[in-house]
């Protein structure tokens, strides 16, 4: 079996979707000046509520909507604490991660009366779409076809978000609120409202990310099943400099390396080292995506006066 074959790329797409969705959410938050470390917790909330929704409604679409709703409510806590109560965003993010871990475990007990994992073989996950024309393209068809709708939605959202940021009035104002909130406020732009909106959108995206994880990648919930994906999403957000397409590119890079690292396990390298691959490659990739120099950052922070 070859290392770089069709299934590698298909596997990459699956692995990357939850990360990409959450990373886009992170990018929106970052664009309004809120560094959201709570992606992991938001995603976990989404994953759990998707399963709960599915359990009660028996309909996978309603489940996704339910997941989005629950995650949005959870994200509003982030917004309220950091925007309204001026709590340190990072502390809020970290504690939300803890809170989500505790809440989902607890609710798992309350709702399903199980510990650790809820799995039901009759539960139906998200459908896999075989896309007629796409399917027939020789190599590409096998990579791109046969995924859950959320995989395609993630790609659409990355592009959509790029358009939203750079082509719409609301997007423009959102960027402005992040670039210089004082100035935006002095122009009568409702910065706070925009920040809430951004966090809300982030909640939607993380809800989708969770739903893809628990109803798309697999059809179950297990405690802590996000397994650090939220932090990887955070890295992708930063590496992509909060540019939706950049975020997508860095997520894909990470996903590819992750998929590759799974395959390299068979070879002579110890597993510990193959597992390092995605992280090492991401660091190397940072050589290309240069950071703004600290001088520029400092200039901006200490805004020139007259």
């Amino acid at each position: 079996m070859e290392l770089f074959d069709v299934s590698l790329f298909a596997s990459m797409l699956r692995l990357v979707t939850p990360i990409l969705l959450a990373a886009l959410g992170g990018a929106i938050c970052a664009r309004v000046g809120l560094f959201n470390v709570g992606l992991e917790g938001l995603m976990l909330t989404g994953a759990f509520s998707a399963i709960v929704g599915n359990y009660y409604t028996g309909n996978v679409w309603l489940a996704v909507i339910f997941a989005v709703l629950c995650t949005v409510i959870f994200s509003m806590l982030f917004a309220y604490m950091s925007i309204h109560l001026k709590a340190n965003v990072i502390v809020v993010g970290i504690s939300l991660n803890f809170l989500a871990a505790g809440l989902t475990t607890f609710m798992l007990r309350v709702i399903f009366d199980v510990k650790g994992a809820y799995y039901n073989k009759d539960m139906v996950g998200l459908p896999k779409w075989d896309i007629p024309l796409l399917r027939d393209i020789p190599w590409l068809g096998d990579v791109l076809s046969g995924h859950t709708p959320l995989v395609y939605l993630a790609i659409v959202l990355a592009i959509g978000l790029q358009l939203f940021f750079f082509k719409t009035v609301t997007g423009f104002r959102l960027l402005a609120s992040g670039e210089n909130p004082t100035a935006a406020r002095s122009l009568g732009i409702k910065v706070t409202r925009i920040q809430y909106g951004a966090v809300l959108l982030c909640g939607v995206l993380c809800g989708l990310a969770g739903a893809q994880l628990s109803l798309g990648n697999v059809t179950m919930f297990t405690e802590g099943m996000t397994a650090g994906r939220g932090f990887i999403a955070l890295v992708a957000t930063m590496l992509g400099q909060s540019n939706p397409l950049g975020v997508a590119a860095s997520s894909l890079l990470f996903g590819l390396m992750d998929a590759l690292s799974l395959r390299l396990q068979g070879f002579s390298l110890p597993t510990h080292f193959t597992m390092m691959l995605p992280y090492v490659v991401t660091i190397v990739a940072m050589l290309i995506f240069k950071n703004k120099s600290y001088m520029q950052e400092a200039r901006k922070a200490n805004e020139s006066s007259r």
Partner: protein
Amino acid sequence: MLLQMDNITKSYGSVAANSGVSFNLQKGEIHALIGENGAGKTTLMRILYGMESPTSGEIRLNGQAVSFDSPAAAIANKIGMVHQHFMLFPSFTIAENIVIGREPSKTVGFDRKKAIADVDALSKRYGMPVDPAQKVEECSLGVQQRVEILKVLHQGAEIIILDEPTGVLTPLEVKELLIAIKELARQGKSFIIISHKLQEIIEVADRITVLRDGKVTGSMNAADTNEDELSRLMVGRELVQLTRKTAAPGKPVLEVADISIRGNRTKPTLDGISLHVKEGEIVGIAGISGNGQSELIGAIAGLAKIDSGSIKLLGQETAGASVRTIRERGLAHIPEDRYQWGVAKDATVTENGLMGHANKQQKYGLLRGASIREMVAEWVKRFGIKTGSLSTKAQYLSGGNLQKLIVARELAQLTPFLIAAEPTRGVDVGAMEIIHGELLKKRDEGGAILLVSSELTEILKLSDRILVMYEGRIVGELASQSATEEQISILMAGGKRHGKAETT
């Protein structure tokens, strides 16, 4: 009466920024508001613009009592404000910066083409040329100022507040701005303008109101007054005319020979600059900002790398040396941009004063707290720095007071050489007098000073020799006794008459 502010009082804790201020404005009028640093001018305007709410008092617009709880409300009532500190989005284009808040749109899409067209039309209509597609971070301060005004005009403001609009502009830019303001006033717009430059105020304003310590100390027609009377009303005392002794230059302290810095475009940023400054002499560098002065200062101070040439301080080569080394050998430096280079806003007055002195104020690596506080307290007294206490954060000082702190700090380094870049930018006339006096004193005591200023009067008043920079080169040297503003202006514009000079 278009606008009336009655008995406005605003207190921040125990500080009364405004107490019982009354102020009015007529349609088509240019009304100047002047006063010392910290007199309460900005506060009064922020209240009018809905950014602060007054502790007491009333605002009436066309006779109707109004109260603005946010800038949006003020904007809706056709009041626009150009802030003392630019409120721009550096990474956005000029057009974006101007239309923001009232963007032209196609359904939900932001119609950038129309924005550019609108801005083009706007700038033509009011005679303020800008390139709408250019990014603001790449623009000169003069253009940024124009963007701020165009933004206010785009919002449809009828009352326009300008808080120190000329602080960073070159003489030419100031001239253009004043002309534009007069023209707009003729078209029916009303202006409130704040400035420390009395000469321009008298030139442009119809009426002048003077604030001191939060109270109105006078209000008169511009035609009926003069600079002396205004400064007396502002400062509350008579200003002394500074007299400059003839220079007695000694041996060279700074020798710059043929230094160059490659630019990122085609033109070099610095192109073969040579100059020297001797003991007991002030050398002034004039020039429109953006012609290499910042880079020259950076190179001498060790903040920018040069590509070729040599810089000697007291005979020792310092090109490539660290800032620390250069400072230890004998450099002090009043930076051009006080917020960017001159202070850490979150640190206290004492901590900001300690920079550069730490190595002298220590024993075994431990700071000598008492002696440091004594030192800073002495400056506060000598320069009349208005601050709550020595542990007030620098960001709570008004700009002028912060500037005095920086000047005091750098003069106290007691170095043979001093770079003074825009040493009085944004400070009131009283403070300016103090700073100028201190600079001259240093020179008379044998110090060598390189003065960089976009203020020609300042250059003429302090310098013994004047060098003019244009496009990274020194295009002329003049003796101060014989130099005239006219002469310098021509050189600053690259030898052409300034009417034809590039302005962007």
